[in-house]
């Protein structure tokens, strides 16, 4: 397993300890993993699984206020940190993770099913905590068929979030190597590392992939499996990736921190076949209710952690994903998040369906549709567009082409009133397009 700075042996980890011989003290405790690097976090969670009562995986971008609230909700009584000074006044017992491994003394028996606590990557406010078991987290891994030779896994995601953790677990459980991302690394350097390690399987959000394609640095990198998840994968990005990586299998997966791993689609088309709703595929039941996709499986979170939070599932055990789905010609298309609807004079639109049309224009690399206040209709649609590099048309020609495409494909209120060209679009730390309205 490697990151931008160092490399450790995954098989070697089994006989080592990075907790200075204090692992036994953490048995049965509720542990916060507050480590500076994904690499150290991966090592710590492997060591603590089966020993701690629960572990809360903390991505790097949580504010101090939110963290205090999360610590309380999760009833944290121990923190594993590489920065003990930060925790000195918090009243929680701190265990310092060492920078180098030591040989482990007699291995601690894994006696309990540790609760893996993860944060939801939703809207603003304190993230919710969901609890998973290792069995649930790795359920989809056993079912996958992997290439017979040792895969080299990589992901754009932080492995302390659900999407990234899935890839880490594939490397740790399924075998192979892991290349971790670094948020401060230039894209060209990231691709160089991917290439140097011979990455075969790589996963990211459509926004991650669009940024990679925009960078012009993707040449020479030849993965075997390109995966998208976390956001709607529209036909444009699937086609662009197929073109950039002609030897690769390009697929998109549906998963969320609450609903777990749902399903994968490998037919090169956006959305998924409506027949998948008929049930029972791979232990996953799906239905559409009130326009949104509901999922039930052995891989969903066991529940939210904390008091006074709405139940994770309905009475039948289905999680409401909040992702709105429309069925067209036997194919289910994701049209957007329930909470993201823009209202224009009483008529509704999802920003994602506008972006899918805009992104289908060859001169466009990525786009964001948002509501812009209007004294006439309440709101109109504004579109921010990042041009594809190396494309020959002027921005005026792209604007005309984009508006014409929108008019042909969408109802009038969905067509952007205003188009603006921008050099880049804001992306959240979870790799998704940032959507606060201007």
């Amino acid at each position, binding site marked *: 397993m490697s990151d931008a700075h160092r490399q450790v042996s995954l098989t070697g980890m089994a006989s080592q300890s990075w907790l200075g011989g204090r692992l036994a003290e953490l048995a049965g405790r509720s542990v916060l993993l507050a480590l500076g690097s994904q690499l150290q976090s991966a090592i710590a969670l492997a060591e603590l699984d089966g020993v701690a009562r629960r572990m809360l995986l903390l991505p790097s971008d949580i504010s101090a206020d939110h963290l205090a609230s999360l610590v309380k909700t999760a009833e944290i009584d121990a923190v594993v940190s590489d920065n003990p000074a930060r925790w000195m006044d918090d009243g929680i017992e701190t265990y310092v993770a060492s920078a180098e491994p030591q040989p482990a003394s007699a291995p601690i028996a894994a006696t309990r099913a540790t609760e893996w606590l993860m944060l939801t990557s939703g809207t603003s406010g304190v993230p919710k905590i969901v609890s998973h078991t290792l069995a649930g987290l790795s359920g989809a891994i056993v079912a996958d068929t992997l290439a017979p030779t040792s895969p080299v896994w990589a992901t754009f995601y932080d492995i302390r979030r659900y999407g990234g953790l899935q890839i880490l677990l594939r490397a740790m459980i399924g075998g192979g190597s892991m290349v971790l991302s670094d948020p401060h690394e230039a894209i060209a350097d990231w691709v160089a590392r991917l290439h140097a390690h011979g990455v075969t399987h790589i996963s990211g959000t459509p926004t991650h992939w669009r940024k990679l394609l925009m960078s012009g640095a993707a040449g020479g990198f030849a993965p075997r499996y390109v995966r998208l998840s976390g956001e709607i994968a529209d036909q444009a990005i699937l086609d662009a990736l197929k073109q950039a990586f002609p030897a690769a299998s390009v697929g998109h997966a549906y998963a969320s921190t609450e609903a777990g791993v749902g399903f994968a689609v490998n037919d090169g088309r956006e959305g998924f076949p409506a027949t998948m709703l008929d049930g029972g595929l791979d232990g996953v039941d799906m239905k559409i209710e009130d326009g949104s996709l509901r999922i039930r499986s052995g891989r969903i979170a066991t529940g939210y952690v904390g008091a006074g939070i709405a139940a994770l599932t309905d009475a039948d055990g289905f999680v409401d994903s909040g992702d709105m789905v429309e069925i067209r010609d036997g194919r289910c298309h994701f049209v957007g998040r329930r909470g993201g609807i823009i209202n*224009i*004079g009483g008529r509704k639109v999802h920003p994602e369906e506008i972006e899918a049309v805009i992104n289908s224009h060859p001169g466009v690399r990525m786009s964001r549709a948002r509501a*812009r*206040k*209007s*004294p*006439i*209709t309440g709101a*109109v649609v*504004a579109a921010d567009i990042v041009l594809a590099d190396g494309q020959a048309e002027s921005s005026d020609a792209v604007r005309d082409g984009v*508006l014409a495409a929108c*008019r042909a494909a969408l109802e*009038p*209120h969905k067509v952007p*009133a*205003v188009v603006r060209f921008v050099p880049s679009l804001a992306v959240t730390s979870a790799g998704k397009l940032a959507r606060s309205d201007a």
Partner: protein
Amino acid sequence: MSIRLKIIAEVQQVAREQNITLPPLDDDLPLHSTGLDSLGFAILVARLEDELGLDPFTISDEVAFPLTIGDFVRAYENVPA
């Protein structure tokens, strides 16, 4: 270009995009006779805000909603500099 001419040019652009044939844009032409619906005007107002830096309908609650082309143009011309 004067404010009036910029407004007329933008009205023509919106009409072109929506395949609307405009009647002559005289000052006393009622807005509802232009062929533009409320969405068309919303688009027009947004673009004029970007181009002129003004949206007279948001600045002041007292601006009576214009009835004619002349009212519409004057709403922009009358915004205090």
